[in-house]
């Protein structure tokens, strides 16, 4: 009964959570957090595929000013809307917490399951139901509001998919809330003996911060979307100025959720990077307390900055100034984390495997994503850059370049534990390189597009109203580079899909602890047994006190 790897003796009967019971029903109605995590992972990646294909369509269309694919403006508008809505609501909000988090939170805590297994299953079912609404939107009607559903466009003019899609997002919100409640209670109540708060892996801290936001921010978007549905269905006039309502109020409501939710996306990725950078450089994390506390700080300050999405919407100058100031405040804890990760590598023993390559990519891309936020947080420059491709590039650097890269890093890091198989390391490195290069080619060009004035959500950019010829030339060239980059990235992602699937069937058997990790998930078999641990594990030291660490070297 200790964290020491006693469990690598093959489990007596050779059973694990994957083969303990059989049949589709044993998966759909399972209460095992690991299976629920796997189901989330598959669904999430499936929707990433759908959203990604839509993105490729969008990029292909923008290859020429008139639209290279010949789709109509309406089709294009639906494509980018569904890309955004699917990626936000179905992919990135649940991404790391619901899949990796669900799988590893109880393992890291040394618990048998999350606190409320039935609730956990219910939140997966709600997720699936919400996803069905989005699919119904695609199949039966259309949705052309952009993922932000801004009123009064969404209440008045947009296609009929609005009610379906917002109902879907409403249901997904409840899925998030239930996950958040479940995680917080699990972390409070189900920690193994000896696992004190200051011995929690930082990934757990980040899930804790994420859950706070899930619980406190999601209900507001729930009610906002509910009001939008009521407004659209019955014309009650809450957001529609024609009936005396206020569209800016919608924006306040929407961003009260949708800004904190950005931290829901990024915080788990921060947690993942904290794990990866320590294990793969065999170092104790630099500034454990600072990183843990800054996660919680970000969760709370995140509630104070939503107005920076509305600098040009006509909110008052005073509140714009306050929001701008608070926005810079949130940059501080974020910077602390980045510096701490870099400092962690100091005098380490850094191995260049696939998870570590993703860590390097993350630090590179997140630095760009975070720093370009300064342009958008400053009032005067935001006036120029708001709603241009600069914003598109910025949030893709943060959400895709950071969250998704963190997600990929997490998948590669924990893949042996989840599946009991090793993937092909060479292909892993090649794919990481392709994604990294493709990503930068795609999105760095978009910074320039944005500063030059290319507005976002444009189906075409040919000269209807006489765009200045030099601008048009520049836009065309940059869009073409960006489109090429997106296809390079897609190639890398398909390669990952290929070798991960291949590893499930043909991969080498994974050892219980391939990276020499100390947190509890490495103290059980790969893949874990049905109830996680043989007996109750007991924790005697922190998760980053690696045997290689020599306290004499400063």
């Amino acid at each position, binding site marked *: 009964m200790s964290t020491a790897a006693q469990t690598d003796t093959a489990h007596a009967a050779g059973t694990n959570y994957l083969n303990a019971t059989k049949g589709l029903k044993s998966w759909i109605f399972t209460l095992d957090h690991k299976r629920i995590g796997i189901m989330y992972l598959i669904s999430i990646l499936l929707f990433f595929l759908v959203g990604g294909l839509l993105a490729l369509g969008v990029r292909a269309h923008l290859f020429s000013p008139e639209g290279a694919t010949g789709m109509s403006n309406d089709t294009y508008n639906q494509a980018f809307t569904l890309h955004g809505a699917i990626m936000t609501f179905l992919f990135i909000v649940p991404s790391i917490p619901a899949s990796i988090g669900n799988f590893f939170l109880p393992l890291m805590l040394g618990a048998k399951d999350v606190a409320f297994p039935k609730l956990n299953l219910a939140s997966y079912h709600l997720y699936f139901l919400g996803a069905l609404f989005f699919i119904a939107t695609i199949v039966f009607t259309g949705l052309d509001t952009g993922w932000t559903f801004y009123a009064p466009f969404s209440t008045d003019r947009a296609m009929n998919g609005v009610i379906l899609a917002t109902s879907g997002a409403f249901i997904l919100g409840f899925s998030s809330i239930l996950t958040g409640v479940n995680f917080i209670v699990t972390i409070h109540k189900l920690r193994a003996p000896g696992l004190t708060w200051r011995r929690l892996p930082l990934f757990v801290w980040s899930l804790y911060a994420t859950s706070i936001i899930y619980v406190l921010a999601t209900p507001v978007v729930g009610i906002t979307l509910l009001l939008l549905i009521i407004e659209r269905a019955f014309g009650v006039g809450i957001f529609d100025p024609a009936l005396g309502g206020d569209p800016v109020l919608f924006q306040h409501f929407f961003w009260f959720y949708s800004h904190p939710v950005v931290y829901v996306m990024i915080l788990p990725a921060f947690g993942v990077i904290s794990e990866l950078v320590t294990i793969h450089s065999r170092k104790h994390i630099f500034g454990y307390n600072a990183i843990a506390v800054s996660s919680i700080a970000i969760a709370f300050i995140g509630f104070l900055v939503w107005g920076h999405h509305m600098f040009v919407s006509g909110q008052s100058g005073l509140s714009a100034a306050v929001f701008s100031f608070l926005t810079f405040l949130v940059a501080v804890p974020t910077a602390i984390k980045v510096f701490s990760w870099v400092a962690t590598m100091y005098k380490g023993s850094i191995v260049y495997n696939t998870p570590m390559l993703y860590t390097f990519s993350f630090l590179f891309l997140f630095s760009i994503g975070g*720093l370009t936020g300064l342009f958008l947080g400053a009032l005067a420059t935001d006036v*120029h850059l708001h709603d241009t491709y600069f914003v598109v590039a910025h949030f893709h650097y943060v959400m895709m370049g950071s969250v998704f890269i963190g997600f990929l890093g997490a998948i590669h890091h924990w893949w042996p534990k989840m599946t009991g198989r090793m993937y092909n390391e060479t292909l892993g490195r090649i794919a990481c390189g392709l994604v990294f290069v493709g990503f930068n080619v795609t999105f760095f060009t978009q910074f320039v597009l944005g500063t030059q004035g290319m507005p976002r959500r444009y189906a075409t950019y040919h000269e209807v109203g006489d765009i200045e010829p030099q601008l048009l030339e520049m836009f065309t060239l940059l869009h073409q580079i960006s489109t090429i980059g997106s296809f390079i990235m897609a190639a890398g992602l398909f390669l990952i899909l290929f070798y991960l699937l291949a590893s499930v069937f043909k991969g080498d058997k994974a050892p219980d602890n391939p990276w020499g990790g100390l947190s509890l998930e490495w103290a059980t078999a790969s893949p874990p047994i049905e109830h996680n641990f043989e007996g109750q594990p007991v924790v005697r030291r922190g998760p980053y006190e690696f045997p290689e660490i020599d306290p004499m070297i*400063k």
Partner: protein
Amino acid sequence: MINTLLANANGATFWLPVQASTFAEVHDPLFYFIYWVCVVSFVVVVGVMAYFGVKYKRKQEGERTSGNRGNFALEVGWIAVPSVFLLIIFWWGFQGFVMYQTPPANTLNVRVTADTWSWSFRYPDGTVSSELIVPVDQPVRLTMTSESGSAQGAVIHSLFIPAFRLKRDVLPDRYTVLWFEATREGTYTLFCTEYCGTGHSEMNVPVHVVPSDEFAERLAALDSAPDGMTTAEWGQQLFAQQGCTACHSVDGSRLIGPTMQGLYGSTREFTDGSTRVADENYLRESILEPSALINVGYQNVMPSYAGRLTDGRLDAIIAYIESLAD
């Protein structure tokens, strides 16, 4: 490649387009200040990361690593130093924002109306234009609102002129104000940057910054065909500029509204059961009051252009539609 871009760019740089307003002169230094802060920070962070990555690459399994767990002074330092820069950037940005929001006295007042999907600009003398014409070195105040001439409600638009570094949302049933002082003659582009539906990407028009002494002339000239252009040719240009092409094709294909090819002289059927031959009067009425008679098979979505087209322009557009008759 970048050099070609720069050479073509007419005063523009790699990062920013032409600088053509007083606000751009305030904006650009701040932009470059943040830019260099970012470049330096990025180089430091990623440089140190790369250095550690190379220097401390694992040479053998189980090699000893540092027991360092943190350094209070260092942590305080990297909170304090960025904070100073963040404060500077905040304050600088705020200063610029106040300027952006505070028009001086003696502005030229232009009223802007955005509809789906066209702009109209009304000058103090009552002239209405679909393109923005402003004198150089003269503060101009835009008082903007969004309207809907059609049965569907008005939506939010946003007026954006990259050369002036200016942007502000345009809301229905509200008035927002934007001001600028153009400093450089030329023709720039005005974009709509708040997503507004089908024609969003075609809702852009030129901004002409003209010498002050030519301004009155240019306004007057709005009402007749430019030199070297027939009325129908001018009509064609206006047809595109007014955003008509978003809904009406000229090649027979079906868009949101009926095609203009062969329209003139044809007999139209309406949803109220009546029919009428499309003559000049019909065209005029259906532009000014589109919801009066709806063609069978189409929706009542066209905005009214009453008050947004001068008579001369209306005639030109009608002349163009006539020229598309079979």
